[in-house]
């Protein structure tokens, strides 16, 4: 667990309301792994009150730099988008469970949505450096909620996009792309980050196809370090009200989990 004063190097808009921030945070940069997040303080602890948890979308260990990609959606992220270069931002890294690599030679499929791709970008880049074949499938509502090819391309050998309105790539859901990928190319290891419903659908497809699936979860967090017990996610092994282990804390027990560990809905098989 590291809390360091990160220095903002740049913070630029890369798509409609999407920002890419580069931070000098040498202590975090040497340790952070794909799938892990940082918790950035943008206010003085009154308004906004809480920190913003953001997945790390890239890191340069030698240069001591980390990158985050975020969408300005509300008070905290909007405040962050207004911060200028050289500002000092208290940045905490719980450094817990990141994504785990598949066995050597396994084909990798990364499945994300609009602004939920950052952990997959860092992961894809790392896996390619280790000679894994990777495909990146991204869904979004509309074309302008997709990141540019320049940002997506380094993470994968092939990038496939889908939009709900058909304005870019496949007209439909990112899960259609995953079904195609599985039908055409067969076994692979799937890594997924997105809204709950999308991750549930991806987890179900992977269970059915008997391919491994890891998810990077984003529960609402107050502390990000395990002290509030707020970021609870119900586990598939949950055994009722008096089971202290019924919920895991996403911030310290995750944020990456094997999809089979999670109880996605009441009807989820356990």
């Amino acid at each position, binding site marked *: 667990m590291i809390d360091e004063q990160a220095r903002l190097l740049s913070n630029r808009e890369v798509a409609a309301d999407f920002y890419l921030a580069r931070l000098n945070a040498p202590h975090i940069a040497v340790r952070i792994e794909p799938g892990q997040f940082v918790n950035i303080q943008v206010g003085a602890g009154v308004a906004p*009150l809480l920190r913003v948890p953001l997945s790390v979308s890239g890191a340069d260990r030698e240069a001591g730099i980390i990158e985050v990609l975020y969408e300005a959606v509300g008070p905290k992220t909007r405040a962050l988008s207004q911060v200028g270069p050289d500002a000092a931002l208290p940045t905490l890294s719980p450094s817990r469970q990141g994504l785990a690599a598949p066995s050597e030679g396994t084909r990798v499929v990364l499945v994300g949505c609009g602004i939920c791709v950052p952990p997959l970008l860092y992961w894809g880049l790392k896996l390619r450096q280790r000679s894994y074949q990777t495909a990146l499938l991204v869904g979004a509502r509309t074309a302008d909620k997709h990141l540019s090819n320049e940002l997506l391309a380094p993470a994968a050998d092939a990038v496939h996009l889908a939009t709900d309105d058909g304005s870019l790539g496949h007209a439909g859901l990112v899960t259609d792309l995953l079904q195609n990928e599985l039908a055409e190319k067969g076994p692979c290891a799937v890594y997924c980050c997105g809204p709950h419903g999308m991750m549930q659908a991806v987890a179900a497809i992977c269970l059915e196809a008997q391919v491994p699936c890891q998810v990077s979860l984003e529960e*609402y967090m107050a502390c990000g370090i395990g002290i509030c017990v707020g970021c609870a*996610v119900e586990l598939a092994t949950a055994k009722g009200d008096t089971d202290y282990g019924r919920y895991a804390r996403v911030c310290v027990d995750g944020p990456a989990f094997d999809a089979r560990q999670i109880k996605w809905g009441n009807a989820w098989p356990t």
Partner: protein
Amino acid sequence: MGQRMADLSIDFAGVQLRNPVLLASGTCNYGQELLPLTDFARLGGLVTKTITPQPRGGNPPQRIVETPAGMLNSIGLQNPGLEAFVEKQWPLLADLDAQVVVNIAGFTVEEFGQMAASLEALAGIAALEVNISCPNVEAGGDNFATRPQTAAAAIAAVRSRTQRPVIAKLTPNVTDIAEIARAVVDAGADAVSLINTLVGMAIDVEQRRPVLGGITGGLSGPAIKPVALAMVWKVAQAVDVPVMGIGGITSARDALEFMVAGASAGQVGTASFANPNAGVEIVEDLYAYCDERGIDRIASLVGSLR
């Protein structure tokens, strides 16, 4: 920084505190996660997350939402239960260089008594803080803390089973908090702490659904400080036991406001979420404040409202 002169120590109902700043229940878990981020040796102490007789899984997510200058939580008293606490959490807590107050709750009067009795053999607990803001299953789920009789019954049950200082933690969700404070003091409480969270709610208009899995939650943070201050001031006049001020303390100035209003010590809760070292920084700033103003003993500020 010049040489420190001020004496920040406080005798709180017989508990010797290095300084008047403790971490609040439910906002520091059982201390371990904070070890790399703060220094307990520089705090007055910490209060554990509430322990109940049986383990509890807690409420369904979403459990947290930020609100203007505050936040709502609906954790649902998730805790490992008494037995696991004694075996696993306590030995680690006992190792901390800090006064550890153990916060307990029950769902019947008898359970409150049992909790106190079961902890009596553990050496090193500084005091028991009794969270009476829980449903009384023998009285249709009514909250113990909301009526003088049930609040007093829970405290009396604890009082009769422990030699340790008993701190009754009061809820602000009542008409007259001074009446409840008098009832728990008459029942044997050595001190009171207040306030617990205020009942609040957040609604997602698009979905027309409550934001929190527990529908309503507890409001905390800077937003509740004025409410807490008024209640501490009122209670400090109503009872002659020490008062622990809680609610939105984020800075040394906030802590001082509570002391002037009549609190002998204060607890830092939500502020630790944004800044895990908030408690220690508040202590540093209290030293600076006292030294600058030539205040020798911080205890002299308690209840100094003119």
